[in-house]
């Protein structure tokens, strides 16, 4: 009998002998993967939403006087010294006045008696579109307020801060559910293997007396942990995909809801989650084998 064939046969026997416990373990592994992946998916989607939001995010620094072209490189360098940005645009009074006129459209005639001097010159700064830079907007804004001639810095401050707090909360939830995943899968698989070892105590004793090698006895139990990992995590991921498909059809849409246009994990990320879960299940069974087996 080839070794692999034997080990698979023996694993099958083990599964048959304790199928109730095996199902409970599978359920726990699936649920843990589902919970963790669920929060991770929310986090990933929030980041994506943040990206979309930051496309239109700009910090506008209103100035009391226009920046002459010779000064612009110095101002630009000063801004870049604090943080890398995507774009810096210097807006003169005249340009601001023209924009305002366009925005008014048909009612632009109200500006006929007025001149560009009513509009303050400004600098429009587009920050980089990642969460790290978004979360530092407050500090960045405070810094921009110290630029020479700066009167006021404007951006969607409250909204961005709330968004930042919410993202942080989800990030903490992802970390906690990750810890839950590690603990639950590791513990459950380890516990199941322990039960198997206890249930097979007499058999293991006889195998020991027959001169069974350590790999002969341990490999089926390792395969058992491996299988729990493969089936449990794949099932958890499949459940999440079903949940995603269901939710995506209802939450995605035009307008404001477009901000929450849901996306699923990339195949690489999904595979990584499954592989990590498999590794943890196999690790859990290895720890149990080392701890409880005498062979």
């Amino acid at each position, binding site marked *: *009998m080839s070794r692999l064939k034997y080990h698979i046969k023996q694993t099958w026997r083990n599964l048959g002998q304790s199928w109730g416990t095996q199902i409970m373990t599978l359920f726990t592994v699936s649920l843990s993967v589902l919970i963790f992946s669920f929060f991770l998916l929310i986090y990933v989607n929030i980041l994506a939403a943040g990206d979309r939001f930051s496309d239109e995010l700009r910090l506008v620094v209103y100035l009391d006087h226009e920046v002459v072209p010779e000064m612009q490189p110095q101002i630009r360098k000063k801004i870049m010294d604090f943080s890398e940005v995507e774009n810096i645009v210097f807006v003169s009074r005249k340009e601001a006045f023209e924009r305002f006129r366009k925005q008014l459209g048909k009612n632009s005639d109200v500006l006929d008696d007025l001149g560009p001097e009513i509009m303050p010159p400004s600098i429009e700064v587009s920050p980089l579109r990642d969460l790290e830079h978004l979360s530092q907007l407050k500090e960045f804004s405070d810094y921009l307020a110290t630029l020479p001639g700066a009167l006021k810095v404007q951006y969607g401050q409250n909204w961005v801060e709330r968004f930042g707090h919410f993202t942080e909360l989800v990030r903490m939830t992802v970390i906690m559910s990750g810890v839950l995943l590690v603990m639950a899968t590791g513990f459950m698989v380890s516990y199941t293997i322990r039960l198997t070892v206890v249930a097979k105590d007499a058999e293991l004793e006889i195998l020991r007396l027959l001169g069974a*090698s350590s790999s002969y006895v341990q490999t089926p139990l390792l395969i058992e942990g491996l299988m729990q990992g493969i089936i449990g995590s794949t099932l958890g991921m499949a459940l999440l995909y079903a949940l995603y498909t269901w939710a995506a059809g209802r939450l995605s849409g035009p307008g404001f809801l477009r901000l929450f246009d849901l996306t699923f994990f990339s195949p690489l990320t999904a595979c990584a989650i499954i592989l990590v879960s498999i590794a943890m299940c196999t690790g859990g069974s290895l720890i149990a084998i080392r701890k409880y087996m005498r062979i």
Partner: protein
Amino acid sequence: MPAVHGGRPFRPAADVRPGAPDTDFDNKVRLHFMSEQNRENRPFVDVVKVTKVYSPDIVALQDVSLSVDRGEMIFLTGMSGAGKSTLLKLISCMERPNKGLIEVAGRDTAKLKKGEIQELRQQIGMAYQDFKILPRHTVFQNVAMPMEVLYRPGREIKERVNEVLEALRMDHKKNLPAGKLSRGEQQRVAIARAAVNRPALILADEPTGNLDSEISTLVMKLFTELNEGGSTIIIATHDSSIYEGTSHRVVRLEHGMFTA
């Protein structure tokens, strides 16, 4: 003059007289440096001045010495509690002696590492007095275990298990759970498991204790065939019917010591 049992001389492996010089240990040191080829010529089982004491102070064996040649079959007799089972357990590395030396296949069992003990046990087929069979496994599964441990091909396992079960008239019960069998049948399963692999050494502890004379004859026939095939066999028994008139060596244990 060595004692004679069953027509063959009892050869103690060492001079066990009180005060005799302990030359055996020197010999053992020398033998350890012998080549593998020379090992083949040495006793397959060599028990030298072995003492085994169970807690608190129950002396199971005291300064026991015994040599069994490769391919020899011997009967170890004596009353219950004489130390027969203990000696078999020591030879199979189930237990360790408090004193003395045990060599199996030319190797000091006290110095064997975990992997080496596993290898040694793969060469030993032991039929336990308490059977040590798995009641929920079928007869076939129980008997197949020693061959599975060696990853033998499935077809070979099937053929050999059927052959041994047939020899012991147990083939018709091979698919039954072993726990459903009578004690005599369970004993035959234990014997079949010990014999299935044609091991180099068979240790049988009271193999006919629960068997009638007809089945006992079958068991002895199986052992004889294995012995003729090269297996070394040690049978611990107090059933005189299986060794009376035998041409094999018979040694007697009493209160943990060999007697003349």
